[in-house]
């Protein structure tokens, strides 16, 4: 555990010290990384944990009698326990390891959705969703014929809660919603939405991709039915993510992918399946990914999740201040509360040109539709430029962003 992480647990942390935990910044001095919403950088503890695992304890999991395999299985299952604790799940068997949020949502759609949805039913999503929480539902809708409804945003860029409430009715079987909009940074009142869904007998799936790395998440307090996040946005390795599902639901769900480890008994006629989570983890899992993710969750908790949330909020406030004082810079509306992500436009400079020029100033931001094309259409924007924060960012990074924007404005001035 790094010094930065240790000292931060109580009274907030020093992002400059935190930055030293991340080798990428040592190896790319001067890089101002403002794209953690796309994927976060990795602390040395995570990188080294994965290497150490391969160097000391590697073997396939679950079926080996020998020591390395037993150890590997134990580490893999410990990672599941770790993720359960991180989300405050009631039981580790409620944690399914997937490649990322996208696979997690697809699993719910193909397993729960295909088994439970029929023509006439309704699934409600919102205009703030990432493609990962739109396209899988569309694919299944086109097969089954249920109705996919979309709760709109209001003029402020937040979910219009009155309309959302009116869209949940007796036919609604699922409300699937992001906790924090990746394209705009709008924080969504998911607690209220989950309550509304349950009041009408619908389930609630929360896309926690952007929220989970930035704030405390307690799935039991939320009472959501499913929750997904991607490890690579949580300072963990690529290739791993988590689907949380309430045990009673998972137990009733049919398998999706078939293969080894998810079966109890196979004959050519008939196969009986394991209990969750094994039922949903066909084939050899990303063992090192899960173990690396557990270390990343340790890292987050060592910094302190409240401290991280406070840090992200501070940076967001500071960034809002800086950008809104710049002539020609317009923040994209993000509802009542903007958190961890700033999406904006600069008059006369296309986001794509802007990102290229910022890159020349060593400022890494994202330009485009952020996998949220329907939201962009609604906002009547082709693209935006997006700066998003991680534990290693500090206010100077925002100052660098502002300076680089100014340079672009000068270049593009008539």
């Amino acid at each position, binding site marked *: 555990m790094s010094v930065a992480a240790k000292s931060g647990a109580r009274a907030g942390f020093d992002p400059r010290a935190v930055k030293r935990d991340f080798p990428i910044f040592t190896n790319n001095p001067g890089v101002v990384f403002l794209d953690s919403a796309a994927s976060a950088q990795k602390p040395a503890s995570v990188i080294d944990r994965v290497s150490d695992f391969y160097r000391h304890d590697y073997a396939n999991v679950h079926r080996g009698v020998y020591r390395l395999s037993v150890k590997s299985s134990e580490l893999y299952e410990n990672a599941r326990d770790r993720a359960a604790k991180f989300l405050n799940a009631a039981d580790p068997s409620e944690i399914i390891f997937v490649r990322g949020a996208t696979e997690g949502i697809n699993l719910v759609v193909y397993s729960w959705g295909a088994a439970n949805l029929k023509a006439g039913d309704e699934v409600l999503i919102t205009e703030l969703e990432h493609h990962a929480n739109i396209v899988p539902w569309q694919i299944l809708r086109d097969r089954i014929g249920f109705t996919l409804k979309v709760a709109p945003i209001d003029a402020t860029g937040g979910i219009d809660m009155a309309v959302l409430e009116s869209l949940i009715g007796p036919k609604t079987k699922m409300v699937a919603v992001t906790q924090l909009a990746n394209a705009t940074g709008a924080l969504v009142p998911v607690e209220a939405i989950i309550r509304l869904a349950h009041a009408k007998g619908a389930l609630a799936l929360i896309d926690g991709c952007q929220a989970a790395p930035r704030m405390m998440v307690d799935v039991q307090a939320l009472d959501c039915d499913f929750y997904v996040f991607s490890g690579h946005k949580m300072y963990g390795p690529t290739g791993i993510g988590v689907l949380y599902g309430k045990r009673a639901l998972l137990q009733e769900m049919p398998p999706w992918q078939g293969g080894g480890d998810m079966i109890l008994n196979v004959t050519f006629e008939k196969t009986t399946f394991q209990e969750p989570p094994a039922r949903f983890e066909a084939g050899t899992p990303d063992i090192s990914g899960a173990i690396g993710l557990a270390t990343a969750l340790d890292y987050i908790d060592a910094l302190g999740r409240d401290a991280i949330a406070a840090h992200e909020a501070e940076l967001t406030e500071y960034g809002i201040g800086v950008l809104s004082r710049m002539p020609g810079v317009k923040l994209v509306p993000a509802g009542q509360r903007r958190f961890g992500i700033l999406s904006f436009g600069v008059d006369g400079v*296309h986001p*794509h*040109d802007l990102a*290229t*020029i910022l890159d020349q100033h060593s400022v890494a931001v994202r330009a485009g539709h952020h996998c949220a*094309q329907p939201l*962009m259409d609604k906002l009547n924007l082709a693209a935006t430029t997006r700066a998003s924060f991680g534990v290693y960012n500090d206010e100077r990074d925002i100052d660098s962003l502002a300076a680089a924007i100014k340079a672009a404005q000068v*270049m*593009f001035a*008539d």
Partner: protein
Amino acid sequence: METRDLYQDIILDHGRKPRNFHAMEHPSHFAHGHNPLCGDRITIYLELADGRVKDVSFEGRGCAISTASASLMTEVLKGKTLAEADALFKAFHAEVMGTEIPPVPEPLQDDFERLAPLEGVKAYPARVKCATLAWHAFETALKSGAVGATVKTE
């Protein structure tokens, strides 16, 4: 490489004040180009006669690179035979992709030179598609004629 090598004055100028930037009432050929990544949308209009590009124009919105590239393209394509247009596209495409440029016939070398300000794009792999969008739309227009079609790049 400095940004300035990419955003040369001529690019900024064509980006701001694109030439041949208007719709045609009755094009013989047209096509839409769309780069969903950056939201660029462009429509290319052609008036072909006797195997030559009699007129060419475009409309749409996009980044400076894609707009300047479309603008420069309309300038060099006017009056060219389809074979000449194709040779220019091939050479330009190779130039911005950083692959080997096929020999450019002597009479086209001046035109190819006029596209040179976009050469800097090859150092920006993420932007190559911006520079080629208009050309892809041009090619698509040739194939689809007066009914129009959409080409998407990403």
